[in-house]
């Protein structure tokens, strides 16, 4: 009898601190946000007037919102196409470097010591059409001066470009350690069978780190779809709204226009979109296994 009561409350107590923190800092704001999204929220007299689904119909019929959604997904595509596979390639090639391997691993980590905002500001300066570094260097290759953040067509690309070179430190280490943990017997066997080094990389290394890649992709997806900091510092939502992503629209609607209800509704929309994508992602990878 005593044993049953012991077992029941012990695990609860052990888990209580972390569960409490999680509820307080993750779930409570989420549920508040759901509640707020049904009101025309007044910050002086919360919660304000109950308006049901009016917030939802409003933003869903607003072209500003859909442009922000399109911007978000364009960014997602750009980040995916330009930055996701880079640490994988870097790790694969790094595993083939014998001399000074540790040195190169260290050098890859070096950009992460720079504060992210400082890095973005340096890039912003480099993008200056009048006296920036990039145009100065490109002119030696005969490439015309680009307007970078002043050109509506290449602003998004300009924001993604810094991430191509920096910010890959942690992912690189994850992939590299995954590659190193592949049992050498398989690799030796492949070598004996006559597979060339390139072929080995394609058929042996890459498939074996698939699990890590999937995990990274989930984190990457939600990170990019909700990205705010670097876009904000670089362009504050961009010329003519071309780099306003949904998270930025949410913040602007809330703090510049003081419309907290509708921004809560938009956040909830993003929440469902990302949840849906994650579920789809899990289903696809589960099927493959």
């Amino acid at each position, binding site marked *: 009898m005593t044993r049953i009561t012991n077992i029941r409350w012990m695990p609860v107590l052990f888990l209580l601190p972390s569960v409490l923190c999680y509820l307080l800092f993750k779930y409570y704001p989420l549920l508040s946000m759901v509640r707020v999204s049904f009101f025309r929220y007044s910050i002086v007299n919360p919660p304000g007037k109950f308006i049901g689904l009016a917030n939802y119909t409003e933003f869903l019929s607003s072209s500003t919102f859909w442009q922000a959604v399109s911007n978000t997904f364009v960014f997602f595509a750009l980040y995916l196409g330009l930055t996701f596979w880079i640490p994988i390639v870097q790790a694969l090639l790094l595993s083939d470097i014998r001399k000074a391997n540790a040195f190169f691993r260290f050098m890859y980590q070096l950009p992460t010591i720079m504060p992210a905002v400082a890095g973005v500001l340096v890039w912003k300066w480099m993008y200056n059409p009048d006296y920036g570094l990039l145009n100065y260097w490109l002119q030696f290759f005969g490439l015309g001066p680009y307007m970078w953040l*002043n050109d509506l067509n290449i602003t998004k690309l300009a924001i993604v470009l810094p991430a191509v070179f920096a910010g890959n430190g942690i992912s690189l280490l994850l992939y590299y350690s995954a590659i190193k943990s592949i049992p050498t017997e398989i690799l030796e066997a492949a070598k004996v069978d006559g597979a060339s080094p390139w072929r080995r990389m394609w058929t042996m290394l890459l498939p074996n780190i698939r699990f890590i890649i999937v995990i990274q992709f989930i984190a990457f997806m939600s990170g990019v779809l909700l990205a705010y900091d670097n876009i904000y510092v670089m362009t504050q939502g961009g010329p003519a709204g071309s780099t306003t992503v949904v998270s930025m629209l949410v913040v602007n609607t809330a703090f510049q226009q003081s419309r907290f209800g509708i921004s809560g509704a938009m956040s909830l929309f993003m929440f469902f979109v990302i949840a849906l994508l994650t579920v789809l992602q899990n289903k696809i990878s589960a099927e493959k296994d």
Partner: protein
Amino acid sequence: MKKKIRMSAASVLLLSIALTTAACGGNNGNGNASGNASPSTNAAPESSAAASASESPGASAQAEPVEIVVWDKPSADAADKAFKEEAFAAFEAKYPNIKVIHVEQTKEKEREQFMTAVAGGEQPDLYKNPYPDMESYIAQGIAADITDLWNGFEGKDGYLPSSLNAATVDGKIYGVPNDMYVTGLLYNKQMFADAGLDPAASLKDWDSFGAAAQKMTDASKGTYGYAILGMDWADWFFEYYVWQAGGDLTEKQPDGTAKLTFTSDATIQALQYYKDLKFKYKATQKNVVQSLDDNQKDFYTGRAASMIAGSDWIGGLVAKGMDLNNIGFSALPVGPSGKAPSQVGGSYWILNPKSSPEKQQAAFTYATYITSKAYLESVLQYNKDNGMFPNLLSVRTDVDVTDFVDGLPAEVVSGVQSAAKDTHLEYFLKARLSPYIVKPIQQALLNENTDLKAVLQTAQDLAQKEVIDKYNEEVKKIKEIGILSKRESRCYSRGERTL
């Protein structure tokens, strides 16, 4: 034995829960940095003597200590930091029962910081709110109604009546005037001289200005004629050009509703001029969306020959090393309408409607203290003593700034004063409409092939749907309630209805 272990295990768990919540809670309390600075001992004797002769309402009647939060702490590298700290100490000495906690606010993002504080229930007791935000804050109930406090205040006649305009809605007053400025064109005299241009002739009208700016743009030297504002505050300076073309971006109708005039001829002409400055005269910086700070930097480093500025920016530019004798200030070049009104702006101290009456009274005392004749004169004296260019406009009728301008270039002073003669408030509902009008301005500046009428029409339709229709509905509703209650009260007085 088992029981003992269970008890210690339980206490350990409780300890860890306590630690967790303490650490989680502790990190969240950094909102209001208490920064009541210690007074500097090397006080300029005049300033503390002057500051103590204040006209604030008798707060000595309050015996209870009261604490208020004011967002006016100077930044660490502010030129007047020592002066402000002395002033804070002088106020404390005069009103020992009012404890003021000074908090520093950010630059360029102060609105967001303020809204966050309001949303979190931590609105400061006093916040310096610029003119354009007054309308929306009053409508939301963020600025407290201080009509009674104001009417009971003996010193109220010392303030310029026009300085209360932007804070008065339906006869009620919502803020204490703090400062005013006018905008005009700031230009670099040396650069004009180097290009062989006479400022008076070049700054006459749109055409002459465009040609002059083009002449001063030299890619090899890295200089250009006019620093245009294209970042997300672009409408702030763009509205002046619409006025110069004879119109405005919005019109307030007699019944209180708003009408958008984004597609009026005046607006289209103004946007065409903006486009011409960039693409036809090629007289602006290439990075049209750079921040206001960068525009100012281009000006004081001698890259930009001219830029629009407020009359109270001159001191800041001089502090960065620009030679005061090299700065000129004039009204903007006139547009097709033959006029170039200056925009008058400024700020008010707004109180927190949710504070207790004692706190509101204390905050009102502080606000009127730092806008009193004695204090403002001590500020002007400090600026004069330290060679800082003062704000040439004052919100008070009993302060004459010209007493404090010895040693300043006379033409700058007269330039500001003449600009102050024809003034215009910013366009109606600016705070709500800003993002909508900024977009077509940026499109015009970034893409030479923009169809101006089309982008302005799109912006107008969007703003109409998302902002104006709702605003007009609200206004009509309030009016109906007003009419209804008037009708009801008439019925009551005629005896047709009983309570």
